[in-house]
């Protein structure tokens, strides 16, 4: 395997799984030309005139879709850790004796460790998407046959559109669907909110299978997936465990240190002038992010300031802000609790979005870059503000990228992180894996102080009089090393064995993940 040094100084392979790769050239530097990929031409006369596309089971649908060795099968993570369908799907593929599948999930969860046996026996060749928890560990130890490819939610859309990934069969879990294939996620026994992660697949895959445990007579209203893109509909007993799909209630962290970080961020919004009439922000569902939203809400109320829109991951906390009139809209990419699902179903101002509206590099603009500030997490940040969200300091791949890379394009990107976890420094000299370039990361908020990227002179100026503990990142880094007992040793990895590559939002390769040396 030939390794090339990319513009970030990271070594990346020139070819992965037989596909040629383009090394990262810098933010906004790579623009592919030509036509977008397209699905094959279909004709309506080949589909039942009565609109009934229901086939007897998943195996039948896969058979009709022409499943064979080496195909690319996509699934989506809106059922999160409650997903039973993906496991069921690969049980079926295995029973059909098909091998070497490229699995193309929008994300994976610990529940998918069921698939490790299929990675071992050759049913699945490799994963392109995310390798979380047990699958990440498996990958890190060099046990996957092919090389993993990690993409952001936006990068997934980009890869489909520029033909980097051609999906043979998309299998979409639909909490409610009709026999024509119209589908929605906002209702049904396994309601999850929205199906945005499956939208690209429904448009670009050769074959689209909708699987539902709540088949309703035509028409399924509203539809988030259009039946006109769907080939087959399959009824299953259950798509999964509702308690693990969305939580009953999401809870704000109780950790005083994390609450302190959340308070600092809310104050930063006010002191830096981000919190102003008609502003917008993005916040996820991590413990710190939820608490941040709660504190920001107090400040907005006190000052009588209203947001124009909030980008979710929605939770009951954002829903309350919408219902109190503190924001005009929630533009939701993912729903994390039952209140979020209810609000999306009932409130026209709680809008479902997709990686196309928000994150796609090949879109004619993106919501993500229109957001005033995004609050995100990270596993590591280095003294040059580079961020890592996929590996830990011990070298293990444990998380996917999600929408993280895409959200970095907000006008101000804030990473909310503890400066160390137990004895593991989070602020390091150099990130184990580069996932987000420092030029896009503006502010690091830790319990030990706030570091502003020197590039953001405007933010430094705006917060000059703030009572917040604003400090150089190097100083926090040194303090943390001192607490933890010196600079942490780097993981021992096999530099000649790349187990996964990290794609940038434009499809270039920004870094490699290596096999850990046990």
């Amino acid at each position: 395997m030939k390794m090339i040094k990319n513009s970030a100084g990271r070594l990346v392979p020139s070819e992965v799984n037989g596909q040629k790769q383009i090394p990262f050239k810098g933010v906004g530097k790579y623009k592919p030309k030509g036509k977008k990929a397209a699905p094959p031409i279909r004709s309506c006369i080949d589909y039942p005139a009565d609109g009934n596309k229901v086939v007897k089971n998943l195996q039948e649908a896969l058979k009709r879709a022409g499943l064979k060795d080496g195909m690319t099968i996509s699934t989506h993570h809106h059922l999160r850790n409650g997903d039973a369908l993906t496991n069921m799907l690969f049980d079926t593929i295995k029973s059909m004796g098909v091998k070497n599948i490229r699995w193309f999930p929008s994300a994976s969860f610990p529940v998918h460790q069921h698939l490790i046996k299929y990675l071992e026996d050759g049913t699945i060749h490799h994963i392109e998407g995310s390798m979380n928890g047990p699958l990440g560990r498996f990958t890190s130890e060099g046990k996957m046959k092919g090389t993993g490819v990690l993409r952001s939610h936006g990068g997934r859309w980009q890869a489909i559109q520029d033909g980097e990934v051609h999906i043979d069969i998309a299998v979409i879990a639909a909490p409610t669907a009709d026999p024509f294939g119209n589908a929605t996620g906002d209702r049904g026994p396994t309601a999850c909110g929205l199906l945005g992660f499956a939208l690209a697949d429904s448009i670009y895959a050769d074959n689209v299978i909708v699987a539902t445990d709540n088949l309703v007579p035509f028409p399924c209203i509203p539809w988030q997936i259009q039946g006109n893109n769907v080939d087959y509909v399959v009824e299953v007993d259950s798509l999964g465990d509702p308690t693990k799909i969305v939580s009953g209630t999401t809870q704000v962290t109780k950790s005083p240190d994390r609450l302190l970080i959340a308070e600092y961020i809310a104050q930063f919004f006010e002191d830096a002038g981000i919190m102003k009439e008609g502003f917008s922000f993005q916040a996820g569902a991590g413990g710190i992010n939820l608490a941040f939203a709660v504190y920001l809400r107090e400040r907005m109320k006190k000052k009588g300031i209203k947001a124009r829109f909030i980008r979710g991951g929605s939770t009951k906390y954002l829903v309350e802000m919408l219902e109190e009139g503190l924001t005009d809209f929630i533009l939701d990419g993912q729903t994390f609790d039952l209140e979020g699902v209810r609000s999306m179903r009932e409130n026209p101002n709680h809008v479902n979005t997709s990686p196309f509206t928000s994150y796609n590099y090949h879109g004619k603009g993106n919501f993500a870059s229109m957001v005033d500030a995004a609050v995100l997490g990270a596993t590591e940040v280095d003294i040059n503000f580079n961020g890592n969200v996929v590996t830990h300091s011990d070298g293990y791949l444990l998380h996917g990228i999600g929408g993280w890379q895409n959200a970095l394009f907000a006008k101000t990107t804030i990473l909310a992180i503890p400066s160390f976890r137990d004895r593991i420094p989070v602020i390091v000299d150099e990130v184990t894996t580069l996932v987000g370039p420092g030029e896009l990361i503006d502010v690091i908020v830790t319990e030990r102080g706030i570091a502003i990227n020197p590039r953001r002179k405007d933010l430094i100026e705006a917060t000059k009089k703030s009572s917040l503990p604003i400090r150089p990142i190097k100083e926090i880094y040194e303090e943390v090393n001192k607490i933890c007992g010196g600079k942490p040793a780097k993981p021992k990895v096999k530099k000649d064995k790349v187990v996964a590559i990290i794609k940038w939002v434009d499809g270039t390769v920004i870094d490699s993940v290596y096999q850990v040396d046990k």
Partner: protein
Amino acid sequence: MNKNNFVIAGKKGDKIRSDCYVELKSKKSGGIKLDLKSKVEVMYGDDIRKTIFAMCDYFGIKHAGIYIEDYGALPSTIMARFELAVKRLFPEIEKESLPEFNPANNYKTKKDRLRRSRLYLPGNEPKFFPNAGLHKPDGIILDLEDSVSPMEKDAAQLLVRNSLRAIDFYGAERMVRINQLPRGLDDLKYVVPHNVHVILIPKCESAGDVKIVEEKVNELKKKHSVKNKIYFMPIIESALGVIKAYEIATASENNCALAIGLEDYTADIGTQRTNEGKESFFARSMLVNAAKAARIQAIDTVFSDVTDMEGLRQSVLEAKALGFEGKGCIHPRQIKVVHEAFAPTEEEIDKAKKIVEAFKEAKKKGLGVVSLGSKMIDPPVVKRAENVLKMANLKEKEN
């Protein structure tokens, strides 16, 4: 030597964080066999091994079987846990394996510094230590008494000692609550040489209790050439203590404050603690009066419902009205509320400004007596006014 030749120390389990578990078995031969399972093996595994081997060397242990399960314990915690194992195995060993003294911990305190909030940290729970000071309490209390189980008193002594040396508490006053006497006397050697600022003496019932602590502290100060002041905060937690409050308050010139502990007090007088606090009104007033008569601070008990911030605020306002200057905190989130509630009102700030200005004016003119209008102002009144302004200033900063 321990007769089983085998001891354990520290904690283990799925929920354990920032701590470690040690098994130590003495052997006749074979050298040191160390089996380490660490959450931070990649980053600090070699560092931990080095530390353990160095400590074996220091304590003269030549042959032993050591098993360590590490959950990301900081170096000073690992050292405390391993030393504990060594001392449980060889109780005859007296020498101490001290972590390096963090230069950030060299700061001093003052007898009359602000003591609005003091945050209790269970002495055997190292995970709470490194971030405690970030929440800006006026003081942190490393507790050796009620929050430590009787079986782990020795563990907490070593951990508190190491933490006083190594952990930065970011300017908070460094307090330790020792055990009830006479046991508490044995705690002193673990804290006096390590820049403790205030020693809290629990369940204090007589001047003698303070004096005996003072005597022991002086002996240790001399032995270890400790120059800095160490103050005392007797805690009154019984009917007898309340009656003797003034005697206790004046027992030593190193008393900086008198605190009340109401859980034990209400039990002692045979009643229940209520939110209204009628049952403790006498005791609290008595304590305030005794402290003020002795010209030291009066510090209120803790507020134990960590979820009820409004209740806490009311409780502090009431304490402030009774004459208390501080409140105990058992959760970092309480600190801000306590500071806000103790913060002076606009009226108080105005008055304080006038007093301080009059004092400056008098000083400039070389007048020995300061007066404001027709009233004479004593130095303590000026001091209090300065404190009011300091608090007002702090309040501004905190917002």
